[in-house]
Each structure stands twice: as structure tokens, then as C-alpha cells.
């Protein structure tokens, strides 16, 4: 009634908007597209530990922070009451979270202070749309963003990957959302079954661009990318490569990413004498350029949400060899068309499939062409209008269709 803007203000709440993860990147892509389409968009960071945002973000997207944890961001106040409050703050910062289940993978980033500040922030919202982007934030939103804001929960992980205590909270709280958005068709079915009566929709993440340099199928480089930690399964990929090195000595496997398991992976490379053939490349700011040098992409993960780097690789005409892990690869890939899907966590099967592609340049070329066609349905132009349609629908439902006359668009 008082809101005369044609479009509601959209707030994306991220745990750490200044970090480097896949969720952060895709949320920034969504924000960029929405703001370009005329929406008013804000990225809200629950905590802030860095000065700069790590991904390209349109200047028109507002950025704000709930709890600034940078050194020097908090100046100790003077005055007795203020000092008492300050001590209280320190105490709460050390106190474990109360509202977040321990099984939430981000549990350690929360504490009583961050919770209190987030709850206060959520209670203060009375209009627009609030999109929360991980279970912990979704739970807080379900309980506390109750003053009129339209709430959307994003789930970037498949249900089975969540620990039991998190699944239980999901079942309890997600029915309060206007919509729960998931990434794959399999996720949509599983969450819909757990949450009868709740609107669960599938909107995949989008790659940042489809206008990419095509890879050369002649290249003898295979590429993998991801944080060096157990989820990504590089500890299975390296022994798989060991089986190929004698038949394909001129091939190289390049693994991009950094992480806590680097020295374990390095040991594995030494044990299998792969130091000439398997390279831990570290983090790169130019992954697009590096993908374009390879002739296929390998995904060795134990689980995924929707593996975006894999789809980005496909946008460079790279075919994929992947474990059929939950979830994502089977949602995106058609076995034998744009890649090869093999039994999950089976290094021998992974090696066999890689050998098949390495031995057959024509197969790499054909599958590469198919891969770029598959990637097209994950382009920004294919995906982002679905967010606009969802937000428009939710806004109309709340305020009556008259409030947004003219701009209404149904979503498919």
C-alpha cells in the first residue's frame, strides 16, 4: 500500500559475502542480473572478515554487513555502560551458537553474538524479499524474519548430504518459507517429499558467461578444480591417474584449487611417482583461461550440489568424466553424449573412462560440441529470468496483482 515501487527490494543474505565459495559466486551472478534488469538488490553479509568482495559485482548492487569481524572494525568504546556492553560482546562472541544445529557445516562460524545480531536484523525487515542461502541462515529466517518480509530459502546442497539434526530442522522450519529453491530435479523431488505442502522449485545456478573460448580437443591436458579437501575426491583421482600414466605418458592432469589437504595430496602424488604428470596448480584468478587449455574435465567428488565449475568447463567445449555422485552430474550430463558417468567413488571406473577419452580425439571433439549445447541451458539468460519471475509472483501474491500491473510475468 505504501510501497509504490514496481519491484520489491531483494536482499540476499550470505554467511560471508567476502569469501570465495561457489554459493557466493552464484549469488553475485544472480544479483548482477537482477540489478541489470532494473531490480533493487542488496547483498547482506552475516559476517565480514575481508575488505573486498572477491567476485565481480555490479556497482548498483548495495553491499552491507551485519557483524564486521575485521581487525580494527570494532573500536572499544569509552564510558562505563559501553564498556560493560563491550565485555558482553566479547563474551557472546566466545559462546557457541544456540539456534544452529551442530551438524550444520558452517556451525563453527556462528556464535551467540552473530546469532543475536542476525535475529535483530531479520526482525527489523518489514518489506521486500529476503533470500537466505544456507541452512543456518534459513533456520534463523524461518524463526525470526516474521515482520512482513517475503522469505525465500535457497538450498545449495542435496538433502542426503545434510546431517540428521540439520534435516530435522529443515523439516520443521522450511514449510514457513514462501518458496524453497533447490538446484537439481532430484533435489526438488526429495525436498518436496520431506516438505509436503511447501512450494519447492528447481532453479539451477547459472554460469557467469556462455561466451567462452572453445578448448582444443588435441590438447593432452585434463583439468579438475575445487577446494583441496575430502569432498572433492582428489584422493581417488590421483590413484586413478596412476593407472594411466604408462599408457598416456604425454598427458598431464592439472588440479586447480587450494585447501587443507594439499600436503596429503602431494604425498599421494609422490607415492605413485606422478610428480611429472599430476600438478597441484593452486588457486587461479583465471580459471576460464586454464579450462580452455585442456581437452576434458574430471569430476571426482563424493558429493556435490550442482557442480558449477564442471558446467563452466562444458561451456568451453570440454567433455566431462564424472562420478555419478549425489547430486548434479547426472542432472547435467547425458552419459555417452557430453561426457562419461561412472560408478561413484570407484577410481578404476574413473580411470577406464578417462582412458577412453584420452585414446580418442574424435570422441573428445564430438562430446565437446555436445557439452557446450548442454551448458547453454545454464547460461545467465536461461536462468536469471526464472528468479525474476519467482520474485514477481511472490510479490504479486502478497500485494495483489494490481500493485505490479504491467510487469507481471508468469514463470514456467
Amino acid at each position, binding site marked *: 500500500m505504501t510501497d509504490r515501487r514496481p519491484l520489491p527490494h531483494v536482499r540476499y543474505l550470505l554467511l560471508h559475502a567476502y569469501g570465495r565459495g561457489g554459493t557466493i559466486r552464484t549469488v553475485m551472478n544472480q544479483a548482477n542480473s537482477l540489478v541489470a534488469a532494473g531490480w533493487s538488490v542488496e547483498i547482506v553479509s552475516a559476517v565480514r572478515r575481508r575488505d573486498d568482495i572477491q567476485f565481480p559485482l555490479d556497482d548498483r548492487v548495495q553491499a552491507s554487513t551485519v557483524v564486521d569481524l575485521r581487525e580494527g572494525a570494532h573500536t572499544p568504546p569509552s564510558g562505563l555502560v559501553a564498556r560493560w556492553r563491550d565485555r558482553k560482546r566479547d563474551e557472546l562472541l566466545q559462546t557457541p551458537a544456540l539456534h544452529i544445529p551442530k551438524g550444520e557445516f558452517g556451525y563453527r562460524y556462528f556464535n551467540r553474538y552473530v546469532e543475536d545480531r542476525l535475529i535483530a536484523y531479520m526482525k527489523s525487515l518489514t518489506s521486500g524479499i529476503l533470500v537466505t542461502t544456507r541452512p543456518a541462515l534459513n533456520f534463523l529466517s524461518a524463526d525470526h524474519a516474521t515482520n512482513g518480509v517475503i522469505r525465500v530459502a535457497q538450498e545449495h546442497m542435496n538433502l542426503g548430504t545434510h546431517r540428521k539434526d540439520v534435516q530435522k530442522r529443515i523439516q520443521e522450519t522450511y514449510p514457513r518459507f514462501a518458496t524453497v529453491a533447490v538446484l537439481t530435479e532430484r533435489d526438488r523431488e526429495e525436498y518436496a517429499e520431506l516438505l509436503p505442502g511447501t512450494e519447492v522449485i528447481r532453479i539451477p545456478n547459472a554460469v557467469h558467461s556462455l561466451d567462452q573460448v572453445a578448448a582444443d580437443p588435441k590438447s593432452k591436458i585434463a583439468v579438475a578444480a575445487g577446494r583441496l579437501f575430502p569432498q572433492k575426491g582428489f584422493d581417488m583421482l590421483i590413484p586413478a591417474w596412476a593407472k594411466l600414466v604408462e599408457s598416456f605418458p604425454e598427458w598431464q592432469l592439472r588440479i586447480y584449487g587450494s585447501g587443507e589437504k594439499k600436503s596429503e595430496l*602431494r604425498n599421494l602424488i*609422490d607415492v605413485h*611417482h606422478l*610428480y*611429472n604428470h599430476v*600438478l*597441484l*596448480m*593452486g588457486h587461479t584468478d583465471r580459471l576460464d583461461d586454464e579450462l580452455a*587449455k585442456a581437452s576434458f574435465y574430471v569430476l571426482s567428488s563424493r558429493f556435490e550440489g550442482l557442480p558449477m565449475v564442471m558446467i563452466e568447463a562444458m561451456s568451453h567445449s570440454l567433455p566431462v568424466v564424472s562420478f555419478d555422485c549425489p547430486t548434479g552430474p547426472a542432472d547435467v550430463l547425458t552419459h555417452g553424449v557430453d561426457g562419461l558417468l561412472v560408478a561413484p567413488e570407484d577410481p578404476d571406473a574413473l580411470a577406464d573412462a578417462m582412458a577412453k577419452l584420452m585414446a580418442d580425439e574424435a570422441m573428445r571433439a564430438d562430446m565437446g560440441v555436445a557439452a557446450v549445447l548442454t551448458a547453454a541451458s545454464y547460461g545467465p539468460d536461461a536462468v536469471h529470468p526464472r528468479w525474476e519471475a519467482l520474485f514477481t509472483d511472490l510479490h504479486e501474491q502478497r500485494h495483489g496483482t494490481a500493485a505490479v500491473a504491467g510487469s507481471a510475468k508468469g514463470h514456467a
Partner: protein
Amino acid sequence: MGLQRVKAHAEIAEVWPRDGRIRLVGRIHGLPARDTAGSWELVLTRRAHPDRRLRYAADLKGDRFESELPVADLAAPDYAPVEEWDIHLSDGHVELRAGKHLDDIRGKKKIYVFPEQHVGNLGVRPYYTIKDNLSLECRTGGSA
């Protein structure tokens, strides 16, 4: 003149530190074919004492070379805790520095990481310098 010129050198393809030996495989780059005839050897030069040199026969087929050394030869009584040996390929007339300059990888020092070989309290590890040349690093354990 728009092309980037890489001067003649011994381009390393593979480094095999294994079973107390270090084997090197590569190609001579930038010399006319007739100049790669003759007998070649692998020359190690101790960086702190350039007069201290070790020589090993190198096997050449066309421009492809292969050579190896036992790391035990690198032991010396007068070592500082860390010593480096630089690697060349030589036919007695030209000396070609060993290195890896023809691929696209930047920062090889941190990307090509080779395992250390041990003889007594000496640890020997091949590594690429910041200029992508190949050298050996010797660490004397215990005394460091």
C-alpha cells in the same frame, strides 16, 4: 621479430628422483641438428664453489637426452646447511642450462614439487628456480 625467442637450453620433460638416483629426460632446444652430434654430458656445478663440478654421461638420440646421477655423489664435508647445484648439458663446447621454458605454466617452483632423496643425513631435492631453471637443493639434516 614479433616471436618470442627462447635461447638454446636443455628443455626438461621429466625429472625422476627415485631409489637414490635422479634421472632427467628432455630435449635440446634451439641448436641446429648438426650441433647436437658428438658426446654430451650432464654437468653439475656447485653454486657456492663453481670450480666444484660433477660430470655424467648423457644419452642422446636426435635432440632427446637422458642422464642420471646417484645423489650420494653430492655429499661433501664442507657443506653449509643448504647448498645448491646448477644443472647444465655440455658437449665440451657449449653449455646449455637445464630448465623448463616451453610450456605455459608460471611459477613452476611451487607447482612442480619433487620428492627429496636421502643419503645419510643429506637430503637432495630437484627444484625449478624462479627463472624456471632446474637445480638441486641439498639440505644437511641434523647439522642445520
